[in-house]
């Protein structure tokens, strides 16, 4: 039973980190190519002070790329998992916050195009699903007593 559980976790762990890796890499491309448009998307959220908008638009996409590559290679997992949990919690919180106050803006999550559909409950659920994967990785790395081998490999 323990062995089955361990194998199951190993597959789920691999699946989760590869999915998150692909999501982060896919999410960063358009933002890296079009930083000015991405800065407008960041501005439209009306959450950050003006002085941090451009800095966020410059750094965040590359941070996503680095995280994506790390997830796919499978190194530095404790740090990458904590960072991805923080980022995905912030993204989901920002989406929920703007949805709650009725701000009709495009997500800017995977595309900087103004034609991207507005933030809606599906966008939030999608981010919730990514966050669930990140939380699972966090659980395995920090809290699961049966997964020492997985932890050692990270």
């Amino acid at each position, binding site marked *: 039973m323990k062995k089955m559980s361990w194998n199951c976790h190993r597959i789920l762990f691999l699946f989760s980190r590869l999915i998150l890796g692909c999501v982060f890499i896919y999410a960063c491309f358009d933002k890296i190519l079009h930083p000015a448009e991405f800065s407008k998307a960041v501005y439209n959220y009306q959450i950050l002070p003006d002085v941090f908008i451009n*800095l966020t638009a410059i750094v965040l996409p590359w941070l996503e790329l680095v995280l994506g590559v790390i997830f796919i290679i499978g190194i530095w997992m404790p740090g990458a998992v904590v960072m991805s949990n923080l980022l995905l919690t912030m993204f989901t919180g920002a989406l929920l916050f703007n949805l709650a106050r009725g701000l009709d803006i495009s997500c800017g999550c995977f595309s900087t195009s103004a034609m991207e559909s507005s933030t809606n409950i599906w966008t939030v659920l999608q981010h919730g699903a990514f966050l669930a994967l990140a939380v699972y990785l966090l659980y395995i790395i920090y809290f699961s007593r049966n997964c020492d081998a997985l932890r050692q490999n990270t």
Partner: protein
Amino acid sequence: MNKIGNSIWVKTLWQISVILAIGAGIGLISNSLRPDSLQLIGDWSAESRITATTGEHLIISLSEAEKLFTEDAAIFIDARSNEDFRNGHIAGAKSLPWQDVDRLFMKVTEDISPDMTIITYCDGKTCKLSHDLALFLLDIGFKHVRVLVNGWTVWQESDLPVERR
């Protein structure tokens, strides 16, 4: 156990530091090398955001807009949806929802002279509809088009005349 617990947190901290440093480093270096680089601290004031393609500033202040309104020297055009317009708008304003602009602009603008001052507005500090509509109107030949930022809200807050129908 404590030692293992401590070591994973130490590992986490240095890994986060390295990931942040790599991401920030590549981001800042690539930004400085690209021809369309962003300023690290941008100007996000309404004045810098709302300009014509020529670079001319399009914003009109509430006091100027009010003066033109009382002198009946400007046409106000509401860029919000029909539903929002029906719920309330600046008195005498015309409705030209940005999403229907191609279909409706001929009908809405047929009795407006190209030399007349037009003031577009929508609602919210970051609402782009009025700016997009202003650029469109300039593009089709109107010469004096201005944008009243966050128009519906600031107009109501100043207790200026409104209509609801």
